[in-house]
């Protein structure tokens, strides 16, 4: 299954770009309207609940992007199709931004909810580690001067990180039960009312559109970067 990237594919991506940007902005506007005006405040957390509508989608996409990243690295090793490498490299930085956003918004949400900016539970800690895995992937690629080698090496690292994340989640969970048993129940996911599902869904769709838009822009960028590297050799 060797998919070759042809020029007309890139032309198609290029022509789709303005529509995607427009759709992303549109979805964010609708999502903002629903999340700030149309949804009721939570009966326990009040209006601070509204941070969920940006926090949860970015956390989802942070994890999803890393799964796609590791998955395409695995596929690259199996099929030797350079397309997967380009996909991995174009999606990594978007994932890093989403991870950072989920950490920041989660921290801001945590202050009114738990009274502290940060709680050392498994989800938050593994999210933080995930951020550093993204950093390691991106900067290792930049640090190695032979770019073809760099792609292979950082792909191997991404796969190792993918193994590492569940281990960290498990070990922090275990550590928590030992050191601070009480605070965990506070963190259990609040039951979500139906009226909150609509803005959450729209925001998720908007974030997904953003992910696709920027990934496709970066896809073109990475392809051109590869071409420049090839001609300058």
């Amino acid at each position, binding site marked *: 299954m060797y998919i070759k990237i042809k020029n007309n594919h890139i032309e198609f991506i290029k022509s789709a770009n303005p529509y995607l940007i427009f759709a992303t902005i549109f979805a964010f506007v609708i999502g903002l309207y629903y999340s700030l005006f149309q949804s009721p405040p939570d009966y326990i957390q009040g209006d601070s609940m509204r941070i969920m509508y940006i926090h949860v989608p970015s956390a989802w996409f942070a994890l999803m992007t890393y799964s796609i990243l590791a998955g395409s690295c695995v596929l690259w090793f199996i099929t030797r199709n350079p397309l997967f490498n380009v996909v991995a490299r174009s999606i990594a930085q978007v994932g890093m931004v989403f991870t950072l956003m989920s950490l920041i918004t989660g921290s801001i949400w945590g202050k009114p909810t738990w009274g502290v900016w940060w709680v050392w539970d498994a989800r938050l800690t593994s999210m933080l*580690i995930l951020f*550093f*895995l993204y*950093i*390691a992937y991106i*900067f*290792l690629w930049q*640090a*190695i*001067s*032979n770019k073809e*080698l*760099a792609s*292979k*090496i950082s792909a*191997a*690292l991404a796969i*190792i*990180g993918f*193994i*590492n994340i569940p*281990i*960290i989640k498990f*070990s*922090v969970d*275990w*550590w928590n039960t*030992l050191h601070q048993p009480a605070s965990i129940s506070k963190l259990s996911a609040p039951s979500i009312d139906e009226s909150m599902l609509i803005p959450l869904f729209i925001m998720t769709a908007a974030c997904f559109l953003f992910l696709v838009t920027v990934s496709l822009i970066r896809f073109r960028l990475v392809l051109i970067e590869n071409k420049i590297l090839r001609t300058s050799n």
Partner: protein
Amino acid sequence: MSNLIKRDLLLSFYSSANFFFTVSFFILVLILIPFAFGTQTDQLKNLFKGVVWIALALSIIITVDRIFNADYEDGNLDIIMQKNKTIEYLIISKYITHWFIYCLPLLVILPILSFLFYLDYSETIQIFINLFIGSFGMVFIANFVSALTLGARRTIFLKAIIMIPLFVPFIIFGSDAGSWPILLALSMLSFVISIYVTAYGLRLYGE
């Protein structure tokens, strides 16, 4: 394989400053505990149990450049890889020498240090067992990170960023007394991953 072990041990003996440095570094990191946290006995005990892992992790991180990078940069790695056609033997002998040179001295010095921090015999033995088992896993991780980052020169910070997330499970379980079976499992898992990844990295950079 035995030649390589002999050669690495001799090399570290000739540049003996290296392992004196790691032991001194290890001791100095631990000495910082009373300076930073005061000298109440109970507190010191608990802090020592945790900080000893941080000191071990740091001393492994600062030695990561000596595993493959030095040999790669001056060309000795070519000779080593030529003489050891089965690359797995090469890697295992590197594990042995790296552990022997940089972790064994720390483990030898550990009982003395733990008495300085008022730990009793049973606690010392527990920490020793945990460190003994965990240090192997950390050495395996350091080896594959070293092999993967051969092309990225003078990037010790990047190597630390790669390694510390991988050390997190060891440090979590290590500071708990009875968790040596989990450490053993983690070490074995990291051995399996490390031997594949190190071989992959060395083959790539050999080209």
